[in-house]
């Protein structure tokens, strides 16, 4: 921790030196990227810290020119990037104030990050107002690009609709006789959207299964789910959908496991991937596990050079395999590099946006198409598997992994997710 503070202090000194000298140079040789992520609170350990690790690792490699081809050029458009770690905790309003400071006081060149959908939803209009090039890394609510067209804001991974449509399809394939389902999701955009998409999709594709009338929406970061687990245990539904993540997810798995919840019910965890590496044997077998896309445990064995570099470097640096958030932040930093390489290190926010808009690029574990939301919202494949503890190696693995192409699980351009699902998912190419 001490080290961390020292690094921050040095970083700050470097930034102030840079901002002082920045005015004259044309092509900048240094840029600052603010990377917000949960550094405090229950989401920090399982989500925020791996995300930050992923971002730093990729940025360092880019600065040193050590990424595998085709990204082996040095720097961001030649410039060395300093990563400013920002805490994402404290609620959307605090984040808005902090974002304004980042842009207007600290003068960062790009903002890359954000895990919480609440924060992204709040910040999208602010980023537009301040005309600040911003890449959302992980947050998942589809509303961001469906509510209004954006010019400066991008998201380099799929949104909640993809997670939940894919989850529903996987459920249909695996449990065709499902009678009823219920859910426990956090009471904010992410949880609400996740449940809505999952529920609507199942209504479309499995009209014979019934949704419970008592779905739970506990407060985010509540951490204690005794009564909710009881209520769901008594529920007739035989499947539980959850989009819990971070500390809430782990608490729910522990508490549910102790109560035998997952022996009686099928658990569908759309963001369960992070728990696979962290919980080890405490993760029950037989959960339907997603990682919000082709990341983390679902893609560990993909043998592209980029993926192998990512997995191995991360393992060497941090001692564990990279989970979803690490991939997602790494991917967002990579997108920033692509934008800078194309537009130049001194490019305006508009030029950076133009460079990223609508492109398709090869990321560490998958191909990313910036094809929705006017070229601002990424489309990727998405997959699920079933958890199993591998006694031999003493680690969790997923079996029966199945991926669905992006065009199958996300609406076509210009169509709102909810309308798309309600309308029978027209135009899906599976």
């Amino acid at each position, binding site marked *: 921790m001490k080290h961390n503070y020292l690094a*921050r202090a040095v970083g700050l000194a470097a930034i102030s030196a840079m901002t002082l000298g920045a005015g004259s140079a044309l092509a900048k040789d240094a840029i600052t990227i603010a990377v917000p992520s949960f550094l405090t609170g229950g989401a920090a350990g399982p989500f925020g810290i791996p995300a930050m690790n992923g971002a730093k690792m990729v940025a360092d490699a880019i600065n040193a020119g050590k990424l595998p081809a085709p990204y082996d050029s040095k720097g961001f458009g030649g410039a060395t990037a300093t990563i400013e770690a920002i805490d994402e905790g404290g*609620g959307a*309003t*605090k984040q808005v104030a902090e974002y*304004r*400071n980042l842009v*207007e*006081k600290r003068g960062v060149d790009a903002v890359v990050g954000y895990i919480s959908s609440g924060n992204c*939803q*709040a910040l999208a209009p602010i980023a537009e107002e301040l005309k600040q090039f911003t890449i959302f890394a992980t947050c998942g609510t589809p509303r961001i690009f469906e509510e209004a067209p954006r010019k400066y804001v991008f998201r380099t991974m799929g949104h909640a609709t993809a997670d939940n449509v894919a989850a529903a399809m996987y459920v249909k394939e695996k449990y065709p006789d499902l009678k009823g389902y219920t859910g426990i999701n956090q009471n904010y955009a992410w949880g609400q959207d996740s449940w809505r998409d999952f529920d609507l999709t199942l209504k479309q594709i499995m009209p014979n299964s019934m949704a419970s009338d008592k779905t739970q929406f506990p407060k985010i970061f509540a951490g204690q789910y005794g009564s909710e687990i009881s209520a769901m245990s008594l529920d007739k539904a035989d499947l539980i959908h959850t989009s819990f993540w971070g500390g809430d997810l782990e608490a729910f798995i522990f508490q549910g496991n102790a109560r035998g919840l997952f022996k009686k019910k099928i658990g569908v965890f759309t963001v369960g991937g992070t728990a696979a590496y962290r919980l080890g044997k405490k993760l029950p077998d037989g959960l339907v596990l997603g990682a919000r896309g082709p990341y983390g445990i679902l893609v560990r064995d993909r043998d592209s050079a980029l993926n192998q570099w990512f997995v191995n470097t991360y393992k060497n640096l941090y001692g564990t395999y990279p989970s979803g958030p690490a991939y997602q932040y790494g991917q967002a930093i990579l997108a920033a590099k692509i934008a800078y390489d194309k537009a130049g290190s001194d490019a305006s926010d508009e030029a950076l946006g133009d460079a990223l808009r609508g492109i398709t690029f090869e990321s560490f574990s998958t191909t990313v198409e910036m094809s929705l939301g006017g070229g601002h919202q990424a489309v990727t494949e998405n997959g699920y598997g079933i958890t199993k503890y591998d006694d031999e190696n003493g680690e969790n693995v997923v079996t029966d992994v199945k991926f669905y192409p992006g065009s199958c699980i996300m609406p076509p351009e210009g169509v709102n997710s909810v309308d798309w699902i309600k309308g029978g998912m027209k135009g899906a190419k599976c």
Partner: protein
Amino acid sequence: MLEDKTSKFVLFGGVLIILAGAFAPNWIVNQFMFGFSRALAIVGLMVLWRTGLVSFGHAFYFGLGAYAVAILDIQLGVTDVFLRLLAGALVAGLAGFLLGFILRNYRDIFFAMLNTAISMVLFGIVVKTESLGSTDGFAISMSTIFGLAPETKYPLFVIITSVGVIAALLVNYYLKTTYGRLTTAIRDNEIRVEYLGFSVAHAIHLKYTISTILAGGAGALMAMSLGQVDPESMINWTVSGELVFVTILSGPGNVIAPFIGSLVFEVLRTYAFELAPQAWQLIMGATFLTIIFFLPGGIWSLLEKLGGRKNGK
């Protein structure tokens, strides 16, 4: 009404800040907008504190003001800055006036706690109601001024500062009326006030209502300058604590104190957050304790001491 030193200082200072704001970098303008928005609520809490009442739940009114702006924006598309401010202040003021009938009979810890309970009821409702934005809250569209959409934040800054000046002048005047003078008097001895022929309940009710109007206005202005409302940062009990914190930090000495205190708080928080993102609460808490222990009159008393020395007073 404007002859006294404080009023002159407020007017002069307000004009100066508005002029300086035209040349200040954006982030400083932001700090002033946040600081002065919050200061409105602090002015009200200061009036209550002088009366011996500390509310640990004024985030209720702050939140009502902020959410009034949000709901008007989303439901009716109201973007006019004055309508929004008026709505926030009125909704909060009306709620405060009605609840005042109950709260005017409470003192000390009971007053603090009942306010907390009321604010947490609202928190519980908002957090769990999707149509009220639940945990996320709402983004708020840019405010317009008489139908014009300003290019920069400067006009809003001018309005917030002006509202602050007007509120400071009004409250300063109020504190010099008989009603207003009945602050320390009520804190010292309610029985005597009653025997002198004045209703303590009425006096407290008026003060409470004033404080809720100001808190509502503060919430509305804060919502507009931030562009976002959410229950965690607008209604939760920690926000009420924060408001009281700034009140103590400012000191009860003068209506100018809340404005200085709020600015100090804003800057302190910005830097604490920037330099020690994992220990900023520690810095705030320690500052708070230091103030309570060593500077019970708040920042204002410190300024007074410094100024007093100069004036030879």
